[in-house]
């Protein structure tokens, strides 16, 4: 197919030294925040999360799951004073 007989070895060497490229991916995440009940300025769930996967969304000022890293331990859900959080079992697990 290629005119260069050892094209694969040339590209193999190139593949070992070429840099990195990124893409974005969508994830279905298990922590669901009811933004109507969530209080702006409250950090209780964010403090509770043992893996620090929650954060304040800059767009809404409400808590959201920023990283798909959930132990489905329910700490955020149990500790939320407004019952604004529902934790689902992550899709890969449920």
């Amino acid at each position, binding site marked *: 197919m290629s005119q260069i007989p050892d094209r694969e070895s040339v590209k193999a060497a190139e593949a070992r030294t070429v840099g990195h490229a990124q893409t974005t991916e969508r994830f279905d995440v298990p922590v669901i925040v009811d933004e109507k009940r969530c209080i702006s300025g409250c950090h209780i769930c964010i403090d*509770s*999360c043992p893996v620090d996967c929650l954060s304040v969304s800059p767009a809404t000022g409400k808590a959201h799951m920023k990283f798909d890293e959930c132990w489905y331990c329910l700490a955020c859900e149990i500790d939320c004073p407004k019952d604004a959080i529902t*934790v689902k079992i992550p899709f890969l697990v449920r």
Partner: protein
Amino acid sequence: MTEEGTEIEVDVVVVGGGSAGSTAAIRAQKELPLGRVLLLEKAHVKRSGAIAIGMDGLNNAVIPGHTTPEQYVKEITMANDGIVDQRAVLAYAERSFDMIQQLDGWGVKFQKTGTGDFDVKKVHHNGSYVLPMPEGYDLKKILTRMIRRSGVRVSNRVMATRLLTGADGRIAGVLGVNVRDGSFQVIRAKAVILCCGASGRLGLPASGYLFGTYENPSNAGDGYSLAYHAGAALTGIECFQINPLIKDYNGPACAYVTGPLGGHTVNAQGHRFIESDYWSGQMMLEFYRELHSVNGPVYLKLTHLAPETITEIERVLHRTERPSRGRFHAGRGHGYAADLVEMHISEIGLCSGHSASGVAVNERGETTVPGLYAAGDMACVPHNYLLGAMTYGEICAESALGYLQAGPGAPAGGGEEAYELPEQIDAERTRLRRPMERGAGVPPHQYEYKVRRLVNDYLQPPKTANRMNHGLALFERAQDELDEVSATTPHELMRFVEAGFIRDCAEMAARASLYRTESRWGLYHHRLDYPEMDDTSWFVHVDLYKDAAGRMAARKRPVAPYVVPLGDEERRSYYRIRVPGTAPAGSGAVSPPSSPPSSPPSEVSP
């Protein structure tokens, strides 16, 4: 990472605010001025560690009238195939009841009988050590309240990344990073107590979900790696943690809750095949054999129980330790009353709370590095569980206080400047800055996925040298691949550092398992190429350490003379786990040694 950071100096640093770290910090603070004890927590102490959502019981309560410290030491010696430092197990057992009474005084609610006695249950093969805590969901809240009352200085969201050691080998402090703002942390201290939990993010869960682990996924083996790089020996690493768990959910079923109420493990025909559901390597081997036979899969059976018993079980299992079990079962359309719960074998981890893989410690919680102590799941006191973690937290604090009182003194050939250690600090600052400056690169989660997938491919028992050597070569390659990983936030930097810890633990697991050329601890170290237990050559600890050239090396260490002798029959009792006459055909089993020594041999050949 921000350039500015903080540099502070204290007497004692406790790394990790879970079960062991809480009691260690509280105990140390009792004797020291406020501000001189620092508790570092990667998460937040109110919800950190293995018991973030509480615990449903104590698995190893040594309560007068139910058992004795000596009986407990015997049980653990048997469960761990003789490779135990009995003095360390005994030190726990002798203080176990004091810790229970202290917790009782702190407001922890234990199950009691009508007459007010502790309601101890039998789950182990021989003795009775299980003390239910049906309302144990607030255990971490109680520990957090006691930390606050004690006045311990707490730094939440600060992760230890390396330890500082002086030229004389003594511990000199902790280096770390704030995982929220990325600031570099230098904490100088004469004593450090590591309480970092298990290496629970080692194997990859069968679901493929990185954080769907049995252990709290924050426990990524930080303590194993920190201790190793500081020059401490690790031991029993080849005695993996492998647990029987609810399939896919990957949490406990849990035998210690359901067993005393009549639940038990059955095969696909609905028949019992193990006599004891206590988690031992020998039990796990029978579980493995059944699972991979025509009788598999394996289930937890509760369907024969009365409705009120099922309700009682759900009341505990759906509120404590892993309460989301309830929504998992509901999502599958299953319930305990009508359905068997499918069980499987977890991915591997390192943990001395459940098995015996950890940093080598003696009965004072001392590691092999002066000034460095370790407690809890990461410290090798076999089958030490929650109560052992809390007890050893106190033991370590007392040892550290004694060490401070004795005055470590100035290092030979130098004054305090010998502990300034600018080279170690600069090297670590550079190591942490590099992934943040790399720009495009491999995200930490992709790196982690690959290492953990390789752990499954090459280290999940049964083990062979051929497979493990392939794995080891790939884990060495993964050390170089860390240079391709980039971090775009302090959160990703935390995951990058953890990825390095996970890789270190994978190499430890491979090297220790290759070194011990026999089978022992049932499934935990089941080698197809050395299927027999060999007490002549291997009635020893295997210690890992960093050698003079900076390479990971292994050596034998004699088992200390027993303080509680065992008879031959007692030694073999954990090999009578299987219900007689139920062995599936054609499954390889490890047989117990024909004449096990009742005490360690006096001489060990190198």
